[in-house]
């Protein structure tokens, strides 16, 4: 086990556990307001203090983790679910019309400024978590399509694929039975990276008011609310930001750690 993997896994699991725990228990309700107890610095009753409505920030962070994780996770799911089959199909059809079409489609989606389009989608179809998922998910598709195409192409050159072909297996069966298991490592590593990018994107969208809508707590929304209170009560702005940083950092370390663990040859060569 390497250090990155341990720290990364610890941080990621910490937030996942907090999000899961929030379904059963939070230190305080995130829906009851307590104006007289607002903007309190961290203390014994409210470990991370209270926000401008007197809500317990630790509870808000725990429930907010749900939103972040759910949005980013489903967005990765969309990217993998659509992108990987496309990439595998393109590789199986290397040099053919389908391959060309899928590759050009990838280039095209990559050319769109993702943040602007995400904002366009959420603004046009309504702000909310579901549209944020779609907006982020669409831009995960070409990432996975390109990665799985490239990785699959090199697997297609191997002898055991030739053996499978002479055994009469179809390209589709070879792709799912032989190629996919061989590129799964890469996909998992990329998955953690896209997961962390999704957390950042969700925070950005909800910061400009286009992510999950109040009263659903989200980290980006908490930061937007805190913006005018930075000097008055710094903890209101610092804590949700730290939550985002630690979650993203954890996922990135997890990704790096997994890559090293799954393929020791790449150790220390990551870009």
């Amino acid at each position, binding site marked *: 086990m390497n250090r990155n993997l341990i720290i990364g896994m610890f941080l990621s699991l910490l937030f996942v556990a907090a999000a899961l725990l929030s379904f059963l228990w939070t230190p305080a309700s995130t829906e009851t307001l307590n104006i007289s107890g607002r903007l309190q610095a961290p203390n014994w009753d409210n470990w991370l203090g209270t926000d401008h409505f007197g809500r317990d920030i630790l509870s808000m962070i725990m429930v907010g983790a749900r939103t972040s994780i759910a949005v980013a996770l489903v967005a990765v799911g969309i990217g993998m679910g659509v992108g990987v089959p496309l990439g595998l199909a393109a590789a199986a059809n290397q040099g053919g019309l389908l391959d060309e079409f899928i590759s050009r489609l990838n280039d*095209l989606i990559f*050319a769109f400024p993702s943040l602007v389009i995400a904002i366009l989608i959420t603004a046009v179809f309504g702000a909310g978590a579901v549209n944020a998922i779609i907006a982020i998910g669409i831009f995960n598709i070409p990432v996975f399509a390109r990665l799985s195409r490239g990785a699959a192409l090199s697997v297609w050159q191997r002898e055991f694929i030739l053996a499978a072909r002479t055994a009469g297996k179809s390209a589709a069966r070879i792709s799912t039975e032989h190629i996919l298991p061989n590129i799964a490592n890469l996909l998992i590593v990329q998955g953690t990276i896209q997961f962390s990018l999704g957390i*950042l994107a969700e925070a950005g969208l909800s910061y400009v008011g286009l992510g999950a809508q109040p009263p659903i707590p989200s980290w980006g929304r908490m930061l937007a609310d805190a913006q005018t209170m930075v000097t008055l009560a710094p903890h209101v*702005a610092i804590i949700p930001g730290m939550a985002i940083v630690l979650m*993203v950092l954890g996922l990135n370390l997890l990704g790096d750690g997994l890559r090293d663990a799954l393929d020791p040859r790449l150790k220390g*060569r990551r870009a």
Partner: protein
Amino acid sequence: MLAYLLRRLIALVLSLAVASVVIFLVVEVAPGDPASYMLGINAQPDTVAALRSELGLDVPKVQRYLTWVGGMLSGDFGTSYTYRTPISEMIADRLWISLPLALLALLLSTLIAFPAGLIAAARRGQGSDVGVMAATQLGVAIPNFWFAMLLVALFAIKLRWFPSGGFPGWDDPLKALKALTLPAIALALPQAAILTRVMRSSLIDIMGEDFMRTARAKGLSRRQALWHHGVRNALIPVLTIIGLQFSFLLAGAIIIEQVFFLPGLGRLVFQSITQRDLIVVESVVMLLVFAVITVNFAVDMAYAIADPRLRRRA
């Protein structure tokens, strides 16, 4: 080379055409009619209809699309529904903020990334490398709008060195630069982190090459070899990333512009979306996509000229 150029040129035009259709469709299916949005909920139906025909919204979609594309090809981006001014003028105004901001951010991130990447690669595995890599991990994990908030709290509100937002115009260049400094730093942070990593890994790859060993065998010290032969060769991937980052910065500043109330391109798109000024959204997004696609095309071409193998493969 000519055949390759022609193929890529056709692909370029096709991509642009498809992009324009996609943008037009996304904006067109948007719920909410611009005319009724502008006139408010109490407007008479005939007033709405009159405005619709004035804005050209009553002609068929296909015709509207063709007018839009035809106009852009001749440099006419249309007229804003809300402000009734030519969109090309609005874009030109905003570019005077977005372009310097993107350039400044790029300059900052390059100034940080080059030495940082070089140090990390030259002292691979040592304390300074570990430190630099840890810093880049943090750099990519910090949301830039949060970093921007913290910068404002410290340098604008506490220390009062820089303004907390807004843009005074270029009449006083020093004031203008001051207004762009904090946003540029916020934008540069994640870019610098990414660029440092690219620079480091690119240099590390180069150091394993045969010509580097030849350079050492020739009697150059490690540092001389790195400086004279390594850096130049390592620059290719670094320059690609810089190119990509530039087009990203132009559009990606949208949230940072929001934090600092900077009237740049991103903020223009954002405001137009909320005001249902759809023609502005279409034209600006198309312009951004055009910028990205042509930059990528130019990079591909530069590669093809530098490396003939790429031409044959494509």
